């Protein structure tokens, strides 16, 4: 179950693009990228998840980690999550602190 993770900067936004499956075995790759992204100091961290076909609670932990790593004024966005992935994020109540958009 591979996960591909890419990191780029677009203006004042750090973009993490994920594709594949996000579970307990692949989440560590995402974690490492979050560490790098948090160091960029942009106003927004945008996590593009349209290519993620599956996400377990390990992915939720990564999103919480992202929220914790960035400074208080930084917005963390999750863009394009498919419905079951978005539902998992909402089940955990993370949509209160992370902006979920269709992209």
């Amino acid at each position, binding site marked *: 179950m591979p996960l591909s993770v890419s990191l780029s900067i677009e203006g004042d936004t750090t973009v993490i693009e994920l594709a594949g499956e996000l*579970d*307990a*075995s692949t989440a560590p790759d995402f974690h490492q990228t979050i560490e790098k992204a948090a160091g960029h100091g942009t106003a927004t961290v945008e996590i593009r998840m349209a290519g993620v076909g599956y996400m*377990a*609670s390990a992915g939720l932990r990564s999103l*919480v980690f992202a929220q914790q790593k960035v400074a208080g004024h930084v917005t963390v966005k999750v863009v394009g999550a498919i419905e079951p992935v978005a539902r998992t994020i909402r089940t*955990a109540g*993370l949509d209160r*602190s992370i902006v979920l958009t269709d992209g």
Partner: protein
Amino acid sequence: MADNRRRGAFLAEPAADELQVPACLGSLAAIAAFVQAVAGRAGLDQGSAYRLRLAVDELATNIVTHGYRGGDGRITVRGRAGAGWARIVVEDSAPPFDPVAGRLPPATDEPPERRRIGGLGIHLALTSVDEFSYVRRDGRNISTLTVKAEGTDPCPPRP
């Protein structure tokens, strides 16, 4: 293989199958593929198949990380596919753990940085399936998870 013989001998029965894997995170992919095959045989829709996979994945992850605590162990997964339903039985010989008793609903009132995220996987597992049961028998944890195809549950979860 025993499973093939079993299928050959009882063609009228719903297909049954079994997978045994070492209890490590590297086994999650094989477990997922197994569950998806059972869901496929049951003719589950995409959403129901996703729910079953999520539940079994969370349970297996919990067995690896908390049950065996990263030590050696095995996980046995059995599947049974009926018309519009799929059932997965997950067994391990880690110390007793009843997922229902260990369930921890998300503390959505807490900000995420203060929230305990542990236990959320089990909560997701239990809320993803239509039926769940657990027994401890002969030194083994045995969890049974059943998902029905959308539209066949007389009491579907509220959206």
